[in-house]
């Protein structure tokens, strides 16, 4: 089965949301530089597909939708 690609509308990065081994891939936009204190400067409207959980450890959705993503 051919793997489908997805494009992040925040950073325009392209990725496979499901890898060849059947494992999910969680895209998160790259930093766009450094802050004066040396920490990473994050992209405004950053998309982060890593999951958040509630107090019982249950999946309640992704961390940040950003500008969304589109299947290619």
């Amino acid at each position: 089965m051919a793997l489908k690609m997805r494009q992040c509308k925040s950073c325009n990065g392209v990725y496979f949301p499901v890898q060849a081994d059947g494992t999910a891939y969680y895209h998160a936009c790259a930093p766009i530089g450094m802050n004066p204190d040396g920490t990473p400067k994050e992209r405004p409207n950053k998309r982060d597909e890593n999951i958040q959980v509630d107090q019982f450890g249950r999946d309640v959705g992704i961390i940040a939708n950003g500008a969304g993503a589109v299947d290619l």
Partner: protein
Amino acid sequence: MADELAPTLNRAPQVTFRYNDIQPPSSVYIGRDDKLVVVGYSSVANNGMEVNVRILTPDGEIRPSHFEFQFAGDRANHVTLFDLTEGFLLSLTVGTLAAPVLRGQMFGQIWLGRGVLPNVLVYHQLVDAYITSNLQVGWPPGVFESSLSGRGFVRHIVGTDPAAGVEISESCPFHTRWRLVGFNYTLVTSAVAGNRISQLFIDDGTNTGVRGLPAATQASSLTNSYQYGAFGAQPAVMGTLQIGILPPDVYVDYGGRIRTVTTALDAGDNYSAPVYCVEEWLVV
């Protein structure tokens, strides 16, 4: 040798066994309110665990049962309860619903408890272990391990192909620990003059604890391949291949990132999708 064994084979046993009123060979009695608590963590989509149990009922019948629990491969914890028959627990085995599932991809916890989700009190631990499709675990004797012990799941990941002028950044997923084995990518530089230095940073989301340096700078209008790993010594650039050196056993936990930080990166420079190899554990 046969002469020495023959008398042993012919001797009468010194131990006899009862045929009536035999006590159950189990220390675990399941009451009418006890439930089987099944907790699963998985990175594999469309899969789950199957649990088989045998219970010796009070009237002497051995009753087998089969339970299936399908859950998402999102690495979060998933819990379900199954009702059990009253009696002595004789045996329990745990496997996966579908193959292949390798060590490091699915962790199961099988307990006895009481209550209603999400408020369940656990009284007896039966299995805490990685569940695979080719090796069943069970009770007795029970298998108890940390999800961070032993070897993990070795996998190759194709990361995000960034747009031009954007750095590579790969994040370690929820409930996950990685040991970075190798990180491989290509950088195509634009015609804009300047020497790029494509470094590899490993951070915890904020602070950078590990920093790898390439063998050399990369000038404009070139395509270089980069391979970062624990190579020990840094060779000179070989053609267009740059070997970057990392410490051995670089670990990345959830929230951490593996990312390039490029000196003099131009808006027209273009990174490829990274391909990297990690050993992966679920963090339970």
